[in-house]
Each structure stands twice: as C-alpha cells, then as structure tokens.
C-alpha cells in the first residue's frame, strides 16, 4: 500500500501511479539507499548514536516545529484567503503532511548537500518509529485547534515498510563496502547517478498528469504546499545554527525536517479516509507538497553545496 504518487487526471479524481511506475520508483529508491549505504561505515552510525544531540534536535524540529509551521500557515494564509468550499479538508491534508516523518528523499538530498548521511538515515529511522505516537498526537492537537475532531492512527505496516525499505539496502551497502571498498565505491557512484535521475523522473511523471490540478489550485493552497518545505528547512537550519551544530549536521537536520515523507502521508490518507467524501481535497496538499519539495530541496542543495565548497579547507599544493 505504499502509494508513491497520486494523480488527478481530472480535478477531483485522485488516482495512483500505475503499477509499472510504482515498481520502478521502488527499485530506484532501493538502489539509491543501497548506494548511500555503500558510502557509510558502522562508525558513522556509532557517532550519530553516541552523541545524540543531532537526533534530539531533529526529533524536536520534526514533530514540534514542522506541525507548528504547518498550523501557522493554515491559520494565517489558507483559511483567511481561501474561497474554496471544504477548505478544512485541505487543511487536514496539510496537517497530516506536516506531521509525518521524513523519508528516503531527505537522505538523498543530504548526501548531495554533503551533509551527514548517517545522521540523516538515523533520524529517518528514529522519527519513523516515533511517528506511531507523534504523528497522531500532533494531528490530534492541531486539528482540535482548527475545530476538527480528528483522530487517526498511522497503520503500523506503513511505518514498518519505510524502515525495512531503508535499513536493508543501507545495511547491504555497508556490508559490501566492508567486503570490498571498490564494490562499495562503484555502488555509491551508481546510487548517486540514479539519485540524480530520480529527481527529474519524479517531476516528469508528476507534472503532465497533474497539469489540470496545477491550473485549478488556488494560491493559498500553493503557499501552504510550498511554504511548509521552505519554512521548515529554514527554521530548522536556523535552530541548528543557533545551537552551534556543525554545518554538516545543520544541513542534515534542516533537510530532514523540511522534507517529509510524501508517499507515507498519501498512504496514510488513503488508508484512513478512503471512504471520506473529502478524500480528494485531503490529498491535495500532500500531492502538491510531494512535487514542490523536490524542487525546493534541489535549490537548497545547490546553496548548501556552494557553502560547503566555500568552507572547505584550502591547503597549499602538497602535490
């Protein structure tokens, strides 16, 4: 049930990607995670666990800041300026999107941003486990504040799938690297090339089919779908910098916070609200967010990479 993408061929009709694309996406994600794993050693994880500050901060930005950011965007932009009927369904979808943990996309962008991939993967696993409690809790609090009486449970199978899909390829990659640094380096290279292709691939399968959706969506919804990522990444980065985390970890936490698991949010919505009349509207923000977060993260990654190069030690030629 891990739906990776929704399509609305006609406004109001949500469908999922076809079987072939879904399989392909899954394979790509596994290859990417395999490649990321091949760049890591057990020591990398040991370090993230031994000094869990990054994890704690990441947990807080993920489950406290991100839902709050979403809520504030809802009450300041979406509700006052929207003219659409049933806007609360849209708001509910946004809240779900803001309350789910990060997914593998954040790991990939952390890799490209020269962040701390081990921390990123650890944070994803950690927050996905916590999601069992924290996602319903955040949703309960903020939906109540909106006057909605929503309670939802996140299907445990969805979370387990995320974790298994993460740990197995990463673990295998690490084992292969240990066995042969050459095999590891080649897999890492392949993973990063696939990762590079993955971004345009997502956009190509998303945009044409949801063209109508893009045309009919009103601006307050855009603001929230785009704003969640932008504000989430920015705020988390500022917090991480303020407590003087290493730039590498600050980049990691900010991406990990701002990039939430779109497919997971969609899966949760479909599982819980399948029979709800407002399903399409609930799915609206998760669907838009899933597209825009890829674009936003690409831009942020370019900025982070430049900062990384600038901060790199310039030593004289020893060559």
């Amino acid at each position, binding site marked *: 049930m891990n739906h990776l993408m929704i399509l609305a061929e006609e406004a109001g009709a949500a469908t999922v990607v076809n079987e072939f694309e879904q399989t392909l996406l899954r394979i790509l994600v596994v290859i990417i995670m395999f490649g990321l794993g091949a760049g890591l050693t057990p020591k990398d994880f040991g370090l993230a666990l031994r000094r869990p500050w990054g994890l704690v901060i990441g947990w807080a930005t993920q489950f406290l800041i991100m839902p709050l950011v979403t809520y504030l965007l809802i009450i300041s932009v979406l509700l006052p300026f929207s003219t659409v009927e049933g806007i609360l369904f849209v708001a509910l979808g946004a809240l779900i999107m803001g309350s789910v943990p990060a997914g593998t996309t954040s790991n990939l962008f952390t890799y490209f941003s020269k962040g701390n991939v081990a921390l990123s993967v650890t944070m994803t696993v950690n927050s996905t486990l916590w999601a069992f409690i924290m996602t319903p809790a955040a949703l309960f609090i903020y939906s109540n504040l909106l006057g909605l009486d929503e309670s939802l449970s996140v299907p445990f199978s969805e979370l387990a799938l995320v974790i298994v899909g993460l740990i197995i390829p990463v673990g295998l990659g690490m084992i292969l690297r240990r066995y042969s640094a050459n095999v590891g380096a080649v897999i890492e290279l392949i993973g990063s090339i696939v990762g590079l292709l993955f971004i345009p691939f997502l956009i190509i399968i998303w945009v044409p089919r949801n063209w109508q959706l893009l045309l009919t969506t009103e601006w307050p919804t855009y603001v929230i779908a785009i704003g969640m990522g932008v504000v989430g990444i920015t705020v988390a980065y500022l917090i991480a910098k303020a407590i003087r985390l290493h730039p590498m970890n600050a980049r990691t936490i900010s991406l990990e916070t701002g990039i939430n698991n779109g497919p997971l949010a969609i899966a949760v919505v479909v599982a819980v609200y399948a029979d709800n009349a407002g399903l399409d509207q609930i799915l609206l923000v998760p669907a838009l967010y899933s597209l825009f977060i890829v674009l936003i993260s690409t831009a942020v990654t370019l900025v982070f990479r430049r900062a990384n190069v600038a901060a790199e030690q310039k*030593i004289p030629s020893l060559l």
Partner: protein
Amino acid sequence: MTERPWMEQYPADVPKEIVDLGYSNLPDLLQDSVDKYAKQTAFTQVMPNGMNGSLTYAQVDKHSDSFAKYLREQLKLKPGDRVAVQMPNNLSYPIVAFGIFKAGLVLVNTNPLYTPSEMIHQFRDSGARALVIIDMFADRLPEVLGKTNIETVVTVKISEFFPSVVAGVIRLVQKVWSRTLPKITVQHTPFQQALDMGSKTTADVPSYYKDVNLETTAALQYTGGTTGVSKGAMLTHGNLVANTMQMIAMNGKFIRPGVEVVLTALPLYHIFAFTVNLLGFYHVGARNILVPSPRPPGNMKRAFENYKITWLSGVNTLFNALLNERWFIERPPKHMVASAAGGMSLHDSVAIKWKEVTGTPIVEGFGLTETSPVLSFNPLGGKSKLGSIGIPVPSTDIRCVDEDGEPVAAGEPGELVAKGPQIMKGYWQRDDETANSIRDGWFHTGDIAEMDEDGYFKIVDRKKDMILVSGFNVYPNEVEELISSMPGVTEVGVIGFPDEKSGEKVHAFVVSSLREPSKDEIIAYCREHLAGYKVPSKITIVDELPKSPIGKILRRELRDGAIASDSNTQSKGA
C-alpha cells in the same frame, strides 16, 4: 662537553654508526624486500571515493623489470641517461622509479604542477632523453618537447593496475564528468604498452646494474637551493641506500618489519616521501597507501576509513589540515604508531594537538634535498624535544658554525653544516655551486641552528631570510609563530624590507579568513611578546601566501611581490 653530545641520546636499539650498508646499490636493496615479502601488498592507491588498486612486492618487481628492459632494449638508453618522471602518487610511480634504477639510468623527479617554462628548464638542464608523464598533464607537452632532448614520451593513466571495471569507471568519470583528460597531440607510448614491449624482450636485468655502485648517480633531485635557480642535486645509490638505512635505524623497534601501513599523502616526487615512504617503508615490507592528491584534505578520508594506517609522514600543513577536519578529529585512526614530520618546521601547537587527538607522537626531523634528505630526527625510543629537529641520524655529523666555519658554542646560533653518507655528490653540471656548498666535506645548509647541551638541534631560521634591524638579528620564524598563535590567524609570512634608519624593518603578511584580528591588535600582541626591534612595522592582510610544492611559505616571492603591492599596504609606526 663532548663535540658530539647526541651520542649519549641514542636509544639502546639504535646504532650510533652504520658501518656496513649491506647493499651495493638500490636494485640490490629493492631485491631484498622482494625476497622477503614477495606476496605481501606493497602499494595500494586510494582515490578520494575509496576506489583502489594494489600491487604486491612480486608484481612491483616483475613490472619494474619489464620497464627497465623497455628503457634499455626498446629505447636504447645508455647507462647514466636521464629519465624524467612527472606524476602524482599512483601505482605506476614505484614501477617507473625502480625500473629506472634497475636499468642503470638516472631518475629526474619532476613536479606535475610545473609550468611549461619550469618543465623546459628542468628537462634541458638534466638532458633527459625520456619522459614518463601522467596523461592528465600531457597537454603542456607540445610547447615543451621541442626545446628539450626528450625523444620518448610514455603516458600513464591514474587508474593503472586498478581492477578493470573500476579503472573503466574512473576513466569514464575523468572523460565525462571531471574532464581531466586532455587530448594528447604529441607522439606517445601508453605505459601498459611499454611494459608489454619490455616483458616480451629477453634480457638479463641484473646485468644492467652489475656495474652500478654506491658512487653511481641514481637521481637528479631538483631544488631551488639557496640561490633560487633550480639545480639538480646528484643523489647516488649510496646516498639513497644510506639514508634509507639511517631513517629506519633511527626509529628502531617502532618500525616493525612486514607490519606497517604507511599513508603516503606527500608527493613521491619530493625527496622526503621518496626516501622515507617509497624506499624506507618498502625496505621494511610495509604497505604504502598512496593518495594521489591530499587536496582538499577530505580526499584522505576514505584512506583513513578503509585501511589501518600505522604511520604517516607529513609536513606541518598536512597535520594541521587533518586536525581541522571534523571526520578526522571525531574518528582519529586507531592503529597509529607515530608520524614523521619534515619539510618545514612543525609548529608546537600542531604537535601538541596531534598527540591529543591521535594519542601518538609526531617526531620531527630535518633534512634537505641535497642530503637525501634526512639529517636528523627526534629518536622515537628516546627523548623527543618539542620544537627541535632532533639529533643526527646514525653516521651523521652536524655542527653549527660561524662565518669563518668555526663551530660555535652550544646554545649559540650558527649555520648548520653536515657530513655523512647521505650528502649528495654535488650539483649536476654546476661545479661552482658544489664547491660553494660542500667545503672540506661539510655540506652548508644555509639554515641557522642552535645545538643544546644534549646535542639536540633547533632551526632558528634560513640564513638568507634573517632580517637585520639596527644590527639585531630578527628570525622571521619567531615572529611568524607568535602571530600565527593568535586566534583567527591562519598563516603568516614575515620578511624584511629596506629602511633608511634601521637598515631593515619587519613586514608581516597575515592570512586571516575573518579579517580578525585587526592590524592594530596584531601589533599590540607583538609588542607584548617581542623585543621592540622584532615587532613588525608593516602588516599586510592577504588572502593567501605564495607556497612551495610542499607548502613552505616562499619568503622570496613575498619579498619580490612586496615591492609591487606596496600601495596596498598600510604602514604602522613601530
């Protein structure tokens, strides 16, 4: 006090004298390692992403035989002919260098970053007949070759001897992504083809070097020396064998035969890594981890992660760079025994922090290209003194002398002069310069040093860099070290500039990334810690300092540039 107080300082397992080298030339020395360690890994080249290739001692031996045969039979080079080698650290390097020695030819190490005019000078001066060059830099050849005696060009790939799939990936990345493979327009022979030709030739390799003895020149090692014009130090087989044995002997039981894994991040074309890593650690059956380029320092991360490094040779810049890398401080190598520093003075702060982070010492040594290079080292098994270049290695005599060549008292500064089996035969085709630097068998280093009561030496400064302020000697190192200890300061270069009243005055060039401290703060700090005449009269904040290939600050270039950039300089009354 005895004339050689250091004799008392040698640890029990270090001989005071190496009476018999035990080898008649370099091929003889190399053969000994192959006999003992044939199946062990001799070299592993590690790329920044962890891709790697390896050669065993037996493979190095076989391929270098082939290359020797190629040079002698295919190229018809004659004993004593020069072969220039211009490449970064890679698996082909030892094969080429050892092949040249086995062929009875002379190795001319050349910096791959040389400009065409520097290449022309070195190739012409040495009269090299063949050139082995990394393909990445071969685009400079069209304007160079015509002005030299080079008849044959052999091109080497960075991925030579890697597993074929990995080599293919590296090649593809070089072509498509990094675009570091220029089109080579001159006639050239790929290295593998040269080896093939050599291996198919039947010839008796030992016959090439049967007449090579300890007096035979093995390498022309170019150096700016004291006059600035690059000239070739003639290092003999005897010089290099002796210095290898001296370096190994000095470290006693701390270099364990057949066990060590040494990280070679310094370039092998430089005499330090050449003797210490390539010859020394090969001799003891170590595994040499070759890093083609340690810039940026992150390039060394995978080498440290994937191999149990036990020894590291480096310069102050390299140690300092590693200590500024997060990955290095968080996960320092666990299997280190010690590190050797040379090439430039090791800052106390770096040595202390290194010990804190890795739990292992850096022993500082001293030497010059002309001395193969090691003259002195702190004995790892004995007393190691911070800020000192240690005591003379076995069979080496060092003195500090005055202008008349008379030894000065302990604690007094004088020019460091040295005698020993590692002192070069002379400068290639420059008899005047040879006569000027080697007098009565003593090689004059041009460095000002002091010896303490225990026989430990300390470099005060370069003779030519000494600044004379109103008749007082100012040693730039002292001022540099003080300013570089200020937070925010990355690097400092200090020179003298002419002044009507005092003869010379002190000018400091400071690199500080954050523009802090200010010039006033620097001057105030100097006033607090230095005698008045040593305090800089001028401070110039610069983005970077001119450096030599191994990261030494080039004060000569600062002096040349100081006049040109004078308008940018803010003058301060001292």
